[in-house]
């Protein structure tokens, strides 16, 4: 018997979910209804003062919002959807969360238990009865199917435990919709005993800590790499303390961007295909790198081509990760340490303080100053670039000038993402968000609403492409509906820019299916460029909208959008032909890697 008898009572399945969510102190449940979800919603009817139901206009958006909410608060939200198409539409968001180590509880409905394998409306039955689990399995830490009320009680705390401990990830709970309504004898478990009391923040052994410090001390050109794991582990303060103590320069992956203030003297920027030259050149020269929660993806490493981003194995790695599967996945390690980043950093700090360890590395810092100058000389002129169509860099610099220091920035996916990566200065740690792993378009457009739910007082901005925005334009309606005054800034280039650039640069300029244009009767790819009027769209949805074509109009428009406290779309016509400065490379085999367009060309 798993529950103490005094807690047992008679509950409907949906009541168990609702009561459990109260115990988890969940403020929002996000989703989209269908016949497979209304049984669940009904149990929240009387609890709306404590748990608000938020429903954007598509299931994917619900998942993106919950994902963003988790990234900011570390609180997983339940996301309810119906059966069949609803769950199917939410898969993309589940996967997006999974590959960025974010979390939410995806609750799907299902045909009733007595109808399994009948092919009842929206049942996945042709290979196995009630089989949505097969579709979602590769994107969740666990997929549960509760066919009794008691199982709902058993699975919920396990689901929250899995989402919150170790490397976070989404969990799926499927409930056939009869089970929401039938009563069963069970207890609503207490998260305290089943999940919250678990300390998962494992450190490492003292000898390992000492060895890491010794290696860093002996190094001549050490670096610290802050990956997305630093955000996941909420180790930003510890990162700063240790870096300052050891006097070691820090750089990040795209997912780690904002782990340290960009203006911190030890911060070098982002390593990657469209990263910052000081970080990249430092990586090529480093002898030891302390890697904190980074999995060395293709975009981060120049598709693992030696010399572009890294010179491993000449450069030795000390890789710390909570997930052993990510250690030495792509590069051999000098030391691998399985542990929570915050805990291991605290151990390093204590030992460094006890030993009075303060790194010198004066020559190294001197070399790096040279790399910085090269990059600054390149970047600075774009701050005042007056060209029209607007240079993407000028746009981002101007947003930075008027946005509060702690503004939350969500990029979407596409060129807008690396433009933000390279030119948005993230000043308050933990305020830059993007989808780096599964990289689903629309995450930023909807995620910014999750951010607004999490931090209502913060300025929340999404910089997206015209493609990404038009996948999820209804986000504006949701913002109006729930009074979430987010700001969307569209980098409007009349194309899905990132993919058009692949055609320009990898496929000899043969652009097909990537420009937004009108069909003019000859062939589909010679038409006039066309997009809807995004500003007008925003207005018809009840928000504000403005179209910007001149660089001088950017700052006032952004300032006004922030001040207005109304959901606002700023449609900025940018120069669609400006290529992103490629600072390492990215390869699409069998096409060979491209040479960097910035910095000394390095082949090895």
């Amino acid at each position, binding site marked *: 018997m798993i529950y103490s008898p005094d807690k047992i009572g008679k509950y409907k399945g949906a009541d168990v979910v609702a009561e459990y969510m109260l115990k988890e102190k969940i403020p929002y449940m996000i989703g989209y209804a269908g016949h497979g979800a209304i049984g669940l919603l009904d149990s929240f009817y009387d609890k709306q003062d404590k748990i608000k139901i938020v429903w954007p206009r598509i299931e994917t958006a619900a998942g993106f919002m919950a994902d963003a909410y988790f990234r900011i608060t570390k609180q997983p939200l339940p996301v309810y959807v119906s059966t069949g198409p609803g769950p199917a539409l939410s898969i993309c968001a589940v996967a997006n969360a999974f590959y960025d180590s974010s979390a939410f509880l995806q609750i799907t409905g299902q045909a009733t238990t007595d109808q399994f394998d009948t092919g009842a409306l929206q049942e996945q039955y042709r290979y196995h009865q009630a089989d949505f689990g097969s579709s979602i399995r590769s994107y969740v830490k666990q997929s549960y199917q509760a066919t009794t009320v008691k199982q709902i009680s058993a699975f919920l705390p396990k689901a929250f435990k899995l989402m919150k401990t170790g490397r976070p990830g989404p969990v799926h709970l499927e409930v056939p919709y009869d089970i929401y309504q039938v009563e069963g004898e069970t207890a609503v478990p207490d998260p305290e005993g089943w999940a919250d009391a678990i300390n998962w923040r494992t450190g490492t052994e003292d000898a390992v800590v000492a060895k890491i410090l010794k290696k860093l001390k002996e190094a001549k050109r050490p670096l610290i790499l802050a990956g997305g794991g630093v955000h996941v582990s909420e180790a930003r303060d510890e990162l700063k303390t240790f870096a300052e103590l050891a006097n070691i320069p820090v750089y990040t992956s795209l997912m780690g961007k904002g782990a340290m203030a960009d203006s911190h003297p030890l911060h070098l920027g982002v390593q990657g295909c469209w990263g910052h030259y000081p970080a990249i050149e430092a990586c090529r020269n480093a002898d030891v790198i302390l890697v904190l929660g980074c999995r060395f993806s293709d975009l981060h490493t120049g598709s693992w081509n030696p010399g572009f981003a890294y*010179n491993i194995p*000449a450069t030795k790695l000390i890789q710390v990760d909570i997930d052993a599967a990510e250690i030495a996945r792509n590069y051999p390690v000098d030391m691998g340490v399985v542990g929570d980043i915050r805990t291991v950093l605290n151990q390093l700090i204590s030992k460094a303080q006890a030993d009075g360890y303060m790194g010198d590395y004066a020559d190294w810092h001197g070399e790096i100053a040279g790399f910085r100058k090269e990059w600054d000389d390149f970047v600075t002129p774009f701050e005042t670039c007056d060209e029209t169509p607007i240079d993407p860099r000028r746009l981002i610099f101007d947003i930075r000038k008027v946005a509060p220091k702690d503004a939350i920035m969500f990029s979407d996916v596409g060129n807008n993402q690396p433009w933000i990566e390279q030119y948005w200065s993230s000043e308050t740690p933990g305020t830059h968000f993007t989808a780096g792993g599964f990289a689903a378009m629309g995450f930023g457009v909807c995620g910014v609403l999750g951010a607004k739910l999490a931090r209502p007082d913060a300025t929340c901005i999404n910089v997206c492409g015209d493609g990404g925005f038009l996948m999820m334009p209804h986000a504006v309606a949701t913002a109006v509906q729930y009074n979430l005054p987010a700001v969307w800034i569209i980098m409007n280039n009349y194309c899905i820019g990132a993919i058009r650039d692949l055609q320009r640069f*990898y496929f000899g300029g043969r652009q097909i299916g990537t420009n937004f244009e009108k069909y003019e009767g000859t062939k589909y790819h010679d038409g006039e460029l066309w997009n809807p009027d995004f500003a007008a769209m925003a207005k018809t949805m009840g928000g504000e909208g403005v179209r910007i074509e001149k660089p001088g109009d950017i700052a006032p428009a952004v300032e006004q959008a922030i001040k207005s406290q109304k959901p606002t779309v700023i449609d900025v016509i940018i120069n669609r032909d400006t290529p992103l400065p490629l600072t390492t490379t990215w390869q699409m085999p069998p096409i*060979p890697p491209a040479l960097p367009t910035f910095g000394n060309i390095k*082949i090895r």
Partner: protein
Amino acid sequence: MQRRGAASGNGAPLLHNMDIKETITSAWSDRDLYTGLSILEAMCVWSSECPGEALPEQMHDDMVKMFGLDAVQGERDLLLSTGVITLKNGGTVMDSKFYKPLSSLVNEKALCMQVFFNGIRFPIGEFMSGLGEYLVREAGATKQEQPCNDNCRLSLTWEDKAYEFRIAFSPVWLPAIADRAAENNMFVAALCPFAALQWEKTMISYYEYPSFRNHTACYDPWNNCKLNISKGGLFTYFDWYLRDAYGSKFSIPGTFSQALFDMGLLRYNDER
């Protein structure tokens, strides 16, 4: 031991192999020593790689591209006249007994080539000893004994793979050793003034061969440039040696990148 040179038919002198160094040196006295040594070096490498086999036509053509037909022809005639090489199937073969003294001659001279860093001129041999010490100290590489006390070669093992750095007058012999290097999973770098010889133009066609592009590299400490897309990870430390010991950097000639682009091994991210 004495023998008649194969060119004895046209009146070549009888030579003792120990005299050969002197004979050649004196014959060079009124010629371009650098070209002579480069060609002799290539022949020595070839004869040790493929004893008894005629010098491949392609290697001959590469030499012509670098030194000019007259110079190559002149050196060939000289060597034929001394009996060091003989004609075989239209090509030339070095008599194996001359390999040792002649390669030692080439090596002696090669070690004396002067490099220039930070206002100081010193022999390349010194540069390479420094490199050897650096690779042992910083990379943890293990030095291998040279069987024939060949100071122009630095042989090491690193991460279970063999590496060889060779001081040379020219890299024209590099294609000759590429297949053997690949078979033995070994990496060979030539340290030679390739930039002055415009080698990157000559050698680029060999990049079609994975053995060549993955197992050989070329460094020019006279002009601080390099040609390397090989998979030899230890070569990173060569860059770092230049950085740490001399505050300098090997750059990659634009012609090389362009050539790799032309043959589809690299791309530029613009619409050229």
